């Protein structure tokens, strides 16, 4: 009984953590390449969820089969959110690339407030019901008391997405160019890498991941409003800092540690203080390991 309870909390933490990790990757990759905390990232996540909601609603009315709705709503969310991520960078950050570092940061906060209010005006301030995009799989029925289909779906899709991301970053030319730009931007220019292209690519990838996260969470929670990006963004940012901002494995680890902490602490101590545990963990890590769990604070050899 004891063990079963622990296992339940553990799986819950894993699911939560993998979502945090998905969003945290966007923060960490953008930070790695342009050294900017993209505070509008949570809003991209929210926009992804809204896009999926709109597309899914329309397709449902038109009578499409469930699977087609899931795939098309997901793809639409990715494309739409990427377009937003790309545009936000061009509009709010690119003109400030040579400005002092505080300016793009303020611009990011402004962009976040703008996007929230824009959705508030265009949609509504009320919670909207979100359809259960992920069905209860029949073949999973015997095991569904351990982990429900939606949670399973979240775990499986994040694992697949992270494998895909690892492949892109490690082996494709664009991925290598991204790492090169993060390590030495001037040198990247000198070998002919178009830094603008790399930055745009980074924003598009980060936004896609956030959009997937948004759709998965919204479908599990069953409702969304214009404000969901704020808390998700702050938590994912915490995860990124926890793991060491700029480090990709760090973002994944940070997300999992954060999700696990929240889940176990709420399960064993009190569920009223979920956010307190998350941020207390952040404070502790920053005291003992200021660069984060996997952060680099090595001096570079010249």
């Amino acid at each position, binding site marked *: 009984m004891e063990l079963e309870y622990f296992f339940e909390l553990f799986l819950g933490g894993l699911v939560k953590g993998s979502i945090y990790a998905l969003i945290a990757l966007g923060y960490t990759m953008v930070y790695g390449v342009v050294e900017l905390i993209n505070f509008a990232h949570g809003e991209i996540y929210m926009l992804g969820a809204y896009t999926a909601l709109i597309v899914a609603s329309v397709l449902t009315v038109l009578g499409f089969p469930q699977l087609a709705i899931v795939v098309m709503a997901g793809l639409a969310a990715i494309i739409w959110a990427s377009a937003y991520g790309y545009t936000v960078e061009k509009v709010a950050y690119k003109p400030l690339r040579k400005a002092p570092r505080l300016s793009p940061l303020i611009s990011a906060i402004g962009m976040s407030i703008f996007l929230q209010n824009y959705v508030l005006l265009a949609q509504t301030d009320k919670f909207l019901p979100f359809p259960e995009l992920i069905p209860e799989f029949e073949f999973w029925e015997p095991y569904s008391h351990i982990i429900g289909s939606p949670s399973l779906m979240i775990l499986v899709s994040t694992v697949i997405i992270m494998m895909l991301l690892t492949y892109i970053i490690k082996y494709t*030319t664009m991925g*290598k*160019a991204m*790492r*090169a730009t993060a*390590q*030495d931007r*001037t*040198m*990247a*220019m*000198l*070998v*002919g*890498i*178009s830094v603008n292209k790399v930055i745009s690519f980074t924003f598009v990838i980060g936004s896609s991941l956030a959009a997937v996260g948004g759709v998965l969470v919204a479908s599990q929670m069953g409702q969304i409003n214009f404000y969901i990006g704020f808390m998700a963004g702050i938590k994912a940012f915490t995860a990124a800092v926890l793991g060491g901002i700029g480090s990709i494995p760090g973002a994944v680890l940070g997300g999992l540690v954060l999700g696990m902490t929240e889940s176990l602490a709420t399960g064993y101590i009190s569920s009223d203080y979920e956010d307190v545990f998350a941020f207390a963990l952040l404070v502790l890590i920053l005291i003992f390991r200021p660069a984060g769990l996997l952060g680099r604070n090595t001096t*570079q*050899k*010249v």
Partner: protein
Amino acid sequence: MLKLSHVNTFYGNIQALKGLSIEINEGEIITLIGANGAGKTTTLMSISGVVPPRSGEIIFDGVPIHAMSPEKIVKMGLCQVPEGRRIFPQLTILENLDMGAYLREDKDGVQQDLDYVMDLFPILKERRNQAGGTLSGGEQQMLAISRALMARPRLLLLDEPSLGLAPLIIRQIFDIIARINKENGTTIFLVEQNANLALKSAHRGYVMENGVVTLSDTAENLLANEEVKKAYLGI
């Protein structure tokens, strides 16, 4: 092949290049010598488009490049090995070389050049899967030169290749530079503080002070020049 005329480059309000004019012909090894802060590195960064000049002209192969983006300039066959080598520390040696060939699409040619540079510097082949940052200074310089060669440049800019290296390694690097020039016909523009070494390997040289060229002649004549001897050769 490359012609700079009356180039003025600024960092904010500070003028680093004050009407600089230099000409490089195809197949030559040209050296630019001068003291610290004379503007040598700025000259190279202006040519590469990283710090574009505010006024003046830079013509490469008859095409004005002073307003071009760095990647377009690289694409035209003008590459730089910057000061301090600037290896991508967390990329492997192979990935560093890959990045050198970033703009190329001829896979066979790239493979051929990869074999060529690994033949030039066998140590790179041995350590090809090691992170660039773990190499010694001399090895990093070899990698930096190889990375630039991977773009198949027609004009190669080298910024202080001897900086911080042991004499034996410097000799090896300069032998390779001469070999690249002779075997591939690559034109070389060499910036050096080690004037003696630079002038001995070059055909012609320019002497630079405070953002302008104060002297230009054949390398031989510069080596014999009294002023150069006193100021740069320590004789």
